[in-house]
């Protein structure tokens, strides 16, 4: 347990921003420790905020009203690897990539692969229902979590789900995954392991016009092909990434698609041909294939380091996360460009294009308060448009403190009231992670976070 102010100070931020210094930080090593902490917090009437690695982008791990931060950094044991049943049981602090590495020798991996996978924890993935480039073919975290052990607000411990696919009764596992630490503290996770595909091919399609790239996306999926991943990056983002990673991305193009096809060897070969044909019919200037595992890794390293790479071209930037039906990509891109122009902001784009998950990157200098204010307005406008087009205000980063006030854009008052009732069953008095997910009612329809952080 950390009490000293100079230590607690380091728990006021996560990947999104800084907020408030917690009253204490606890480092449990077991479920029993977690139970003790919950009981203590309950006695002292202070909130409990769960924290994985603090890489989240919606403020899920920051403190809003004081309380105890429960860091799972020391609960990082892989408890069981059960290859014949394709399952593993892990503590919440296990780093996402470490689980995949632990089972890679026997040909398996844990599918959800957020860009932060080398640092983020599986507990954090469960809280945020994290996605990643391979969401398109394999789904998000909830599709790979089968059971949980959860410490409730009074210290009782429940187990939901298990190793088998389907258990009778209500799907509490599904309810808790993605609840952002507002229902209880997850202390153990049973996950599904997936065999690595026999063959993987990665293509880089290069375009002179963004429009052609977005049209290709719709054409590929309309053609009955589901690539394992289908990512788009525009010229601004590409150039930043290339400076950081030297992944071999073309500096003079308007956009690229990073497409991955996997499966049985013969089928993959056929699909690659088909995908390449579609790219070329949509005016791809060039379609490159990764010829080796190293080349493939390099292409992906560029993509995974994209957010950080922008630190090179702009002192601050704000990553947005929205979803639209993928057929609306061309229109949405035009809209984003128009918003950028209206506010005089530079906006880069990087999308999990296949599933319509957008990450517009709004660049600014936090020392310029007018510009910073414009960023928030622009981001709100983009989110509203996502909602109008039948999409969502978050694809994978979660709601946290960032977007709870935007929830009414996609949910009716009745929808939200029902969620609130369910939440109150688990979390009666704003005990777990208060001020997150559901609107607080203090402000509506705008982003009310402090972006920038860092310096």
């Amino acid at each position, binding site marked *: 347990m*950390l009490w*000293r102010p*100079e*230590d607690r*100070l*380091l*728990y*006021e*931020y*996560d*990947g999104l921003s*800084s*907020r*408030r*210094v917690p009253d204490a930080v606890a*480092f449990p090593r077991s479920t029993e420790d977690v139970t003790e902490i919950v009981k203590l917090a309950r006695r002292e009437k202070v909130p409990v905020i769960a924290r994985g*690695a*603090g*890489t989240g982008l919606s403020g899920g791990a920051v403190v809003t009203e004081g309380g105890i931060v429960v*860091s799972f*950094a*020391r609960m*990082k044991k892989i408890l069981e690897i059960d290859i014949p049943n394709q399952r593993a049981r892990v503590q919440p*602090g296990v*780093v996402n*990539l*470490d689980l995949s590495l632990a089972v890679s020798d026997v040909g398996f991996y844990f599918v959800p692969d957020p860009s*932060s996978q*080398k*640092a*983020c924890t599986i507990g954090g993935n469960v809280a945020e229902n994290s996605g990643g480039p391979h969401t398109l073919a394999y789904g998000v975290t909830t599709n790979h979590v089968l059971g949980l052990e959860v410490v409730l607000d009074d210290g009782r411990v429940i187990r939901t789900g298990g190793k088998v696919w389907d258990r009778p009764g209500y799907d509490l596992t599904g309810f808790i995954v993605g609840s952002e630490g507002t229902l209880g503290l997850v202390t153990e996770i049973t996950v599904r392991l997936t065999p690595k595909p026999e063959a993987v091919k990665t293509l880089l399609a290069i375009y002179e016009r963004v429009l052609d790239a977005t049209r290709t996306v719709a054409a590929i999926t309309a053609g009955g092909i589901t690539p394992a991943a289908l990512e788009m990056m525009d010229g601004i983002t590409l150039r930043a990434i290339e400076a*950081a*990673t030297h992944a071999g991305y073309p500096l003079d193009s308007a956009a690229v698609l990073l497409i991955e096809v996997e499966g049985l060897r013969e089928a993959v070969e056929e699909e690659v041909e088909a995908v390449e044909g579609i790219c070329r019919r949509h005016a791809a200037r060039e379609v490159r294939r990764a010829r080796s595992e190293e080349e493939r890794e390099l292409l992906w390293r560029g993509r*995974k*380091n*994209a*957010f*950080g*790479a*922008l*630190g*090179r071209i702009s*002192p*601050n*930037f704000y990553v947005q996360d929205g979803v639209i039906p993928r057929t609306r990509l061309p229109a949405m891109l035009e809209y984003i460009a128009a918003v950028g122009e209206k506010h005089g902001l530079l906006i880069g784009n990087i999308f999990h294009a296949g599933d319509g998950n957008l990450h517009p990157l709004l660049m600014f200098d936090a020392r310029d*308060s007018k510009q*910073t*204010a414009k960023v928030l307005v622009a981001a709100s406008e983009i989110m509203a448009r996502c909602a109008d087009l039948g999409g969502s205000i978050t694809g994978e980063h979660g709601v946290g403190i960032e977007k709870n006030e935007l929830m009414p854009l996609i949910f009716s008052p009745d929808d939200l009231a029902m969620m609130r009732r369910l939440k109150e069953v688990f979390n009666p008095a704003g005990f777990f992670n208060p001020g997150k997910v559901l609107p607080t009612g203090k402000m509506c329809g705008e982003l*009310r976070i*402090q972006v*920038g*952080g*860092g*310096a």
Partner: protein
Amino acid sequence: MQMEGEGRAVPAASGYGPGEKPEWDYYSKCIHCGLCLNACPTYRELGVEMDSPRGRIYQMIQVEQGRLALGESFVRHMDLCLDCRACETACPSGVEYGRLIEAARGQIATHFRRPMLGRALRSLFFRQILPHRKRLIFAGQLLRVYQRSGIERLAWPIARIILPRLGNVARLAPRMEKPFFTERLGVTMEPVGPRKYRVALFAGCIASLAFARANEATARVLAMNGCEVVIPASQGCCGALHVHAGLRDEARQLARRNLEAFPPGDFDAVITNAAGCGSVLKEYPQLFEREGTEYLERALLFTARVRDVTEFLAGIEWNRDFASITVRATYQDPCHLGHAQRIRSAPRRLLRSVPGLELVELKDAEVCCGSAGIYNVSENDMAERLLESKMRRVDETGAELLLSANPGCLLQLRAGVAQSSNPRRRVSHVVELLDEAYRRARG
């Protein structure tokens, strides 16, 4: 913007004093994404934000903003950093963490008063011994007498009983290798066959005494590759340990001496077999950036010619007249080679070209072994923890030979092997292995 954080509304005065300090241009690149966390050995062990790269940078910023004192807590977390720079490899934003931590330590060295004993020992080691060749040789000879006379064998168990930590540290003392390489200073070695390059060998301070054989091997390997090898007499300690300890003025003095000893234009390359030295030699310009004197110019010219020996060899068509050496070997990346200099494939390519040698990849080879200059002495507990994890990984490989490319790492790894399940496992520098393969081929 609403300011909701505690106590941040009123900007307070910076907690830094005069002199070099972490600069906005460098720390503002950190977007606190946290991708560095799991790459950091101390975070992996302790799991606390204060001992993560992101957290350390945040603390540096808080000191600048006056929210955190340049006091004990800050110093503790900066001290515990290995300066291994694994975070730089992990960082997508290109934060130059080494620069930041070294500047922060510069502040600590000048503006924070450490307890007496530590201060005295530091001063003795950094100011009175390392920079002076004669005193260093004298200390080396003392140590050699101690190691060979049997006093060591007697003293060890006693030391362990009285002070277990001292026992741990004592076993890290470098074995003195006579003849000291200092005797070679001023010598020029002829190439084997026609001369293709003229290179200067950077001998190092402690390495000249404790790694004399690795230095000899390096010179011979270079000669086998058509190099005329000059060993300039007036060279001295590179100053890496001083930079890591925040003793920037002392480091500058040492740097100036070396810049004089290796005049630009005389050599095709300045070669070192010590990753720690190589990394600071390549960063000499950072020491002169603020003053911007003629030394900055010279440092830039010098730096452009510094090469790690593995980097140099892999960059030329290296001589492959190796005898076969049948051995299962593994390679530990020195942090200051892999992370600071980004040299990872060169040593591996060289090793794979030796017939018979089976190179097994070491898991977590990019994670620090705990050596980190004098870290294994100053922060022995953490260093031991890292070494234990490292040895477990080494055991997994089943290798009989453990290779690395930096004297400090070799010392630490030898200490680890000595108390591991397989104490007979050999620990060598990559060039020593290459040298052996050349020598066996020539009979």
